[in-house]
């Protein structure tokens, strides 16, 4: 039992008093920055980087990893309570999570989010322990062509994700793609659709877009209702999920964990797709009665599980290949290099205590986070009782401060204002914003990989059919398109949505 002895070694390292303390510091800090607007895990890790130079590399990495997971837990709190997803991955959580909060079921939503994150985190850590090297090989199979096909598949799934009208969903995806085009083009460096504004040189800021469309636009809609009693139900209901809730979620959590673990391994944006993909899958396969979008608890469980599993397995390419999946991982690589550790395949053999210590700390951090977050649920839920006339002021302030602090860029506030109006119009027209967000996030990555693949093939599109992985995703996309487009099936789809 080689894995077993390795895991024991890991726990030996991770359970040392010093590492436990850094793990706790990281988890607490991470939860805080996840809940607070504007300051994310990247900023926090960057600020702590100089301090980490004086630490043992294992402690430093355990603390940074704790911040990273903690932010994932904290991020879903704001998404559920006040409909403000701070990062792309919690957009999906807010769809059903916030509806649950409005029905007085914020407690179960938060509880299920924490529990499914915990479960997924544990499974993903086990998966890394057993299969990190082969998993890393999957990541190396993905070149520009494979990523492009994956993104195509994701975008087609965005249409399936939407409720109701397919035409509206396609329209929103295309609008998302268009908004995603703004900014400096990576291939030519030309600024597109910036209208000469320096503030748009890097494109539309995601946090401003999502805070506007989800947070502020909803405030506007709530304010125009005559009796502004409350956007959120007064009664709190249960604080923790019931056993029935948990039981309903089990299959969803399992599916979400599987999807998230696999997609998380891909450094080129796989983890981002995880929660969207899990939600789409739930809508298709979850057992009736389904009321996704109206507060289905499985709509919280599956994406949260996928999100956390993906966050965890995205450590695989970092630890085993030295390839960062996101900016936080890039900082962790920097921290390791300063300590003379070069992340790569040799870390597992040369520094087993480091690799297995971090894997073991994933379990510990997840346990700490769930212990930390479950009692907090009671506190958060009490916030919901605050009268809406006070809440909306807080939400507006929250969104403005949060948006401004990301880049200290006043242009982002203009973007926030613009998309609040835009989001309000969308809500009035019954157009769902989720496909737009997916188009906005995936569009630029899809374009980047498309053009890179074609540059490498010297313009020959056959490159997309040159690998089985790429062909597989394109076929899956084509299949989804046929399912959506075929009129008879479409009628059935609409019926399914009516439930």
């Amino acid at each position: 039992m080689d894995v077993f002895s390795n895991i024991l070694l890991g726990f030996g390292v991770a359970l040392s008093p010093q590492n436990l303390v850094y793990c706790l510091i990281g988890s607490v800090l991470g939860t805080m920055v996840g809940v607070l607007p504007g300051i994310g895990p990247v900023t926090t890790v960057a600020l702590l980087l100089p301090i980490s130079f004086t630490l043992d590399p294992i402690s430093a990495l355990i603390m940074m990893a704790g911040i990273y997971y903690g932010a994932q837990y904290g991020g879903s709190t704001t998404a559920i309570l006040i409909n403000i997803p701070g990062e792309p991955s919690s957009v999906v959580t807010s769809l059903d999570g916030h509806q649950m909060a409005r029905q007085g079921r914020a407690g179960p939503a938060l509880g299920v989010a924490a529990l499914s994150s915990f479960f997924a985190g544990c499974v993903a850590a086990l998966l890394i322990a057993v299969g990190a090297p082969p998993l890393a090989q999957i990541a190396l199979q993905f070149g520009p062509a494979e990523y492009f096909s994956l993104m195509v598949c994701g975008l087609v799934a965005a249409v399936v994700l939407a409720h109701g009208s397919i035409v509206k969903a396609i329209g929103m995806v295309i609008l998302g793609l268009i908004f995603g085009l703004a900014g400096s083009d990576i291939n030519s460096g030309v600024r597109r659709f910036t209208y000469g504004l320096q503030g748009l040189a890097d494109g539309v800021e995601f946090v401003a877009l999502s805070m506007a469309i989800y947070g502020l636009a909803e405030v506007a809609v709530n304010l125009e209702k005559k009796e502004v009693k409350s956007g959120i139900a007064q009664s709190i209901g249960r604080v923790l999920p019931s056993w029935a809730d948990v039981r309903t979620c089990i299959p969803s959590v399992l599916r979400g964990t599987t999807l998230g673990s696999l997609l998380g391994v891909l450094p080129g944006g796989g983890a981002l797709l995880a929660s969207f993909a899990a939600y789409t899958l739930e809508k298709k396969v979850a057992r009736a009665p389904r009321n996704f979008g109206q507060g289905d608890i499985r709509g919280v469980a599956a994406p949260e599980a996928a999100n956390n599993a993906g966050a965890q397995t995205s450590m695989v390419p970092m630890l085993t290949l030295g390839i960062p999946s996101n900016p936080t991982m890039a900082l962790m690589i920097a921290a390791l290099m300063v300590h003379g550790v070069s992340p790569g395949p040799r870390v597992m053999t040369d520094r087993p205590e480091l690799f297995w210590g971090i894997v073991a700390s994933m379990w510990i951090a997840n346990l700490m986070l769930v212990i930390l977050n479950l009692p907090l649920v009671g506190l958060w839920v009490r916030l919901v009782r605050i009268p809406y006339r006070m809440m909306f002021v807080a939400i507006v302030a929250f969104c403005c401060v949060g948006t401004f602090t990301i880049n200290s860029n006043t242009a982002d506030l203009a973007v926030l204002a613009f998309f609040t109006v835009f989001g309000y119009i969308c809500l009035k027209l019954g157009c769902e914003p989720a496909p737009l967000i997916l188009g906005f996030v995936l569009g630029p990555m899809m374009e980047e990989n498309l053009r890179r693949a074609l540059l490498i093939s010297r313009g020959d599109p056959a490159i997309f059919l040159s690998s089985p992985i790429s062909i597989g995703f394109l076929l899956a996309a084509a299949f989804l398109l046929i399912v959506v487009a075929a009129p008879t099936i479409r009628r059935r789809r609409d019926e399914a949505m009516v439930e």
Partner: protein
Amino acid sequence: MKANGESVSTTLACSVMLAVSFLAVACASVGGAWAQAYPAKPIRLVLPYSPGGIIDYVGRTLAQNLAGPLGQQVIAENRPGAGGITGTDAVARSAPDGYTIVLMDPAIVINPTLQPSMPYDLFKQLTTVSVVSSSPLVVVVAPELPVKSMDDLVRYGKANPGKLNFASAGIGTTPNLAGELLKLRAGIDATHIPYKSIGQSYPDLMSNKVQFAFSSIAGALPFTMDNRVRAIATTGDTRNPVYPDLPTIVETGLAGFEVDLWLGVFAPAGTPPDVVARLNAAITIALKDPELGKAFAKVGAMPRGTSSNDGAAFVRAEHAKWKKVIEDAKIKLD
């Protein structure tokens, strides 16, 4: 007077809360200026890129080491955007009092040639305080490629026209221009494949979808240590301590082929000369600390520390050098 007018318009444009904080800062700066000699309050060192890169690392290390010689905290602040232009522009427009300075890489001299319009004028609105570090790039090639040296690479390129791709961290970045310079000097053909960062290109480099790249040493180190990509040369004027066995490109026969990913500290033009001198002296002391040298070496950077005048002359020379490459290689943003 000018600064006052600006702060009034800012106040009008911003929300009440922001205005209050701006006023608080303005009051503090007036009070500080009267009270004691420079530096009387913490200094902001703007880093115009996202956390995680070499500027971030060198900047934060330098900021920590400056606190001693200056007797004031130096606060490193990431202000990313538009390839460094946003953060640099913010400093170019700030009060020339020495309390807001910026650390920038060669993009500061490349952008004026490359960009069709710039929000600030490098030579009119910024003053060089000191060039603080030098770091060469390292030439890495795909492991499958039968190339073990610069000569091999050039020969392979000439024998297989249209087959080579080279990766960069985006158009107009130092790795891009270094590749273009090689194409011009060695007379080979290669297709430029831009990535968002050089780190992103390594999976494609390992699988030979991209054949070579001029990479930062920090980016290359994890991959060259266990030969997942092959390092063949560095671009400094001397060999780099991180790769003592690798020849410089100049050694391999391309005279004058030096590419330096230098970093320099700049202040707004009009900063009083004694303030610039005070900053320069503190930077010179900080750079002499052996601990800082060790910290820089981990990302392949060597402490440098020029006088303000020498730094300015170097910046002008770098501007002219890259301007010629950009024009000869006909690099255009279109």
